[in-house]
C-alpha cells in the first residue's frame, strides 16, 4: 500500500484495524484470540507519538499502490 518506512508507520494503525478487525469470517480457527487482538492495540498506542511526529513532518501516506 505504501512505500517508505515513515508512511508504513503512519498506516500501521489502519493496517491493524483492517487485518484484525476486518475481513470476512469463515468457519475454521482464528489464530488470534480476542485478548491477543486487544494486546496488539495496547502495543499500538505506544506508536501514536511517533505517528504524530510523522504527521507533523508531512510524511503522509498517499495513493501509491497499484490497486
Amino acid at each position, binding site marked *: *500500500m*505504501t512505500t517508505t518506512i515513515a508512511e*508504513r508507520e*503512519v*498506516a*500501521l*494503525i*489502519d*493496517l*491493524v*484495524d*483492517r*487485518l*484484525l*478487525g*476486518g*475481513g*470476512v*469470517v*469463515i*468457519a*475454521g*480457527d*482464528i*489464530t*488470534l484470540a480476542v485478548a*491477543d487482538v486487544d494486546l*496488539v*492495540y495496547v502495543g*499500538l*498506542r505506544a506508536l*501514536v507519538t511517533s505517528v504524530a511526529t510523522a*504527521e507533523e513532518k508531512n510524511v*503522509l*501516506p*498517499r*495513493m501509491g*499502490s*497499484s*490497486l
Partner: protein
Amino acid sequence: MIAVYAIADHPGPPLPGRVDGLRVVPAHRLAAICGDVEEREVSPNALWRHEEVVEALMEQRDLLPVRYGTRLRDEAHVVAAVAERHDALLAALDRVRGATELSLRVAAPPEAPTTGGAVQRIHEHLAAQARSSTLLDAHESADLLRAAYLVDRAGGEAFTAAVADQQRDNPELRLLCTGPWPPYSCAAA
C-alpha cells in the same frame, strides 16, 4: 494447516508468480486462495507480509479478504467452510467488485472545542461520494472518527481530493487518509 487469504471468483486469473506457495481451492463459483500457515507472532512485518500477498492478488482480481489468522486443517475443510456461506460470500463479493477501500481517521488536539458536528459532517460528505461506508471501533484511542469508504478503483484520486477539501475547511482537525486498501472493512460489514 492451511491459511486462507481471500475469497474470489472461480475460475479466476493465474496466481501472481512472485508469491510462493499460494494455491486455489475451488468451491462451486468461488475459490479460496490459500497458502502456508504464517507465523503466530503478530509483528508489523508479519502483518505487512500478509498485506502484500492480498494486494498482489487484488492486482488481478476482485476479492474478499479473509480475517487475518484464519486457518483450516486441510483443503476439504476449506471447501466446506466456503460452501457453508457460498451465497452470502458471493453477494459480498458482488458488492465490492471493482472497488477499493479508503481509510480515514480524524483526530483533534486535546484543547480543541467540541467538534462532533464537524466530524459528522465530514463523514456524511465523504460517505455520499463512496459506494458504501463503515464506521470502525476507535479502540480507546483519541481518534474522533475511524471510517472506511468503498470507492471505485478509478475514483480513488477524486476521493482523496475530497478529503483534502475537508481538511482545508476544517483546519482545527487532523484528517488522515490512507489507501487504497483491499476491502477489509467494507467486505466484513
